[in-house]
């Protein structure tokens, strides 16, 4: 039984995908949109355009799509699991923990064992888990996670790992410039190998979270209510934590910390398509991906020849929306 909101989503989907691909046209050099689509379907276009489209911009856009989708579905699942609409991998500190882990592996590789660079996302995953667990246990009050405590603990964990990131970079590279890539995120330098890793993990996470959507729906009313409906809550929480942290870690190790996507996109998808996770999961994946791609287009075109870190743009848009949700919540209580 499909309801009307679900139909709207499936009708809007192809248009969204066309919009995403149209972003390839923009950059330091403008390539007409028609050329872009020609190149994508394999028709003949000038060879420089072809290289720009297929080797530079397409992987970057696909990476943005994957990263945005991964962060959004993770945020969406965390919100249901923690019964808190302000939860997201950035706010909870997963992202900065993961960034710290990724840089630690890089620094070890740089200074001691070059092979360590292959363990980058494993390090990111482990420190992402450390960060989430820390936020979780610091904010826990008698089995509950009050919004204020959760956000405050997230801020502290973020500051802590953020400082760790800067320390490692200065210690390892003696170059503060690199910090902005990690702390504010960037999709520059995206290659096809990044796309494959992020693509696989993002698609897998969307499928996973869709497959547990009925349990997430039940958890929206609280852990006890979910248990009354037959949900093995502790098992479910563990799986969401691990999967969410893993995909976030992979996203962060390719593109740094990009904040607020996981917070605002699930919120928006619920507004548009309803709160059933069966729809809000794929919807927030697509919206998150689109949002990152659009922000990245602004990041790399509006300030040529230099690039704005993408996290700056997502924060400029995300922070006011965060405030809006927070205010609305307080009024509701």
């Amino acid at each position, binding site marked *: 039984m499909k309801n009307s909101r679900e139909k709207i989503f499936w009708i809007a989907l192809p248009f969204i995908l066309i919009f995403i691909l149209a972003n390839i046209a923009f950059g330091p050099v403008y390539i007409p949109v028609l050329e872009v689509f020609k190149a994508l379907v394999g028709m003949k276009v000038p060879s420089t355009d072809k290289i720009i489209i297929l080797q530079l911009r397409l992987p970057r856009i696909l990476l943005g799509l994957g990263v945005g989708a991964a962060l959004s579905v993770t945020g969406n699942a965390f919100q249901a699991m923690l019964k808190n609409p302000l939860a997201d991998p950035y706010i909870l500190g997963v992202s900065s923990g993961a960034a710290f882990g990724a840089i630690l592996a890089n620094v070890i590789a740089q200074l001691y064992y070059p092979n360590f660079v292959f363990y980058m996302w494993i390090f990111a995953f482990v420190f992402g888990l450390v960060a989430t667990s820390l936020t979780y246990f610091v904010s826990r009050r008698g089995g509950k996670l009050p919004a204020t405590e959760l956000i405050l603990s997230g801020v502290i964990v973020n500051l802590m790992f953020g400082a760790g990131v800067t320390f490692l970079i200065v210690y390892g590279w003696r170059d503060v410039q690199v910090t902005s890539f990690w702390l504010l995120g960037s999709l520059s330098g995206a290659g096809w190998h990044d796309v494959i890793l992020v693509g696989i993990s993002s698609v897998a996470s969307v499928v996973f979270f869709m497959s547990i959507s009925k*349990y997430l729906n039940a958890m929206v009313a609280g852990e006890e209510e979910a*248990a009354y*409906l*037959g949900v*093995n809550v502790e098992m479910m929480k563990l799986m969401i934590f691990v999967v969410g942290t893993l995909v976030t870690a992979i996203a962060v190790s390719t593109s740094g910390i990009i904040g607020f996507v996981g917070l605002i996109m699930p919120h928006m998808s619920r507004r548009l398509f309803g709160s059933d996770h069966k729809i809000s999961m794929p919807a927030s994946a697509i919206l998150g991906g689109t949002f990152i791609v659009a922000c990245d287009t602004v990041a790399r075109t509006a300030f040529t020849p230099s690039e704005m870190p993408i996290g700056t743009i997502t924060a400029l848009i995300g922070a006011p929306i965060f405030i809006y949700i927070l205010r609305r919540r307080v009024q509701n209580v």
Partner: protein
Amino acid sequence: MFEFLKIENVSYSYPKSSKNAIDKVNFTVRKGEIIGVIGPNGSGKTTLMKSILNMIDYKGNIKFYDQEIKKISRRSLSKKIGVVAQEFAPIYDMKVSEIVEMGRTPYTNLFGDLSQEDKKHIEFAFEDLNIHHLKDRTFYSLSGGERQIVYVAKVFAQNPDLFLLDEATVHLDIGNAQHLLLKMKERVKKFGSTVISTFHDINQASAFSDRIIIMKSGKIYAMGDPEMVLTKDMIEEVYGANCEVIKDPRNGTVNVFMDLEDNSDAFFCDVLKKYS
């Protein structure tokens, strides 16, 4: 004949607490029975409910359909036992139809697709509770009383044999409380369901239940027909409250009246003489 629900020597103490929240509780429940559980705050009513739901690691035995509750999977248990707590408070606003459908969670496949059987039970829930007109409304646009009825509809859709009501009427006014309890009674008559319900309001418990369990400090203090156990002395011993107990002349239901006057004893005696 099998025992529907048998509770044997069940004890539980919360971590960091030296005292047992429930202490060697014993009773059996027959199928189709309505049991009211009353007792002061902290007497162990909710802990008892949580034990029956296998939400806490109790000591002793709880047998449901002759099977130890701890050995029944959470999913199978949720097909047999439904819970109506004080209130239902999802973090996101949802459509009423979505909330009622949620009751089918234990039955549906991984993707939550509804079968004909699921749809039938959802339809019954809407029908029995008379809430078709609320179907497309959003949950938080409803009044408190309507929300609680929608919550009950969700649990009806779950189609359990045993309903546990944990102070389900505590936030409701008398009209909404009556509506909810009447609908539960109808359900019991129609499907032979069994109900165990905790109450703060002794008069609601008395009017609703076939049998009353009075709890004090984690132990069962008294158990039996409402007329038998709800006595002036009992209320005073358990709650420390000075009350008058009067039988409803129409149907014999006992009602408890709280004394706030020094001379109320005399007053009620007059009333009793007049009406009995």
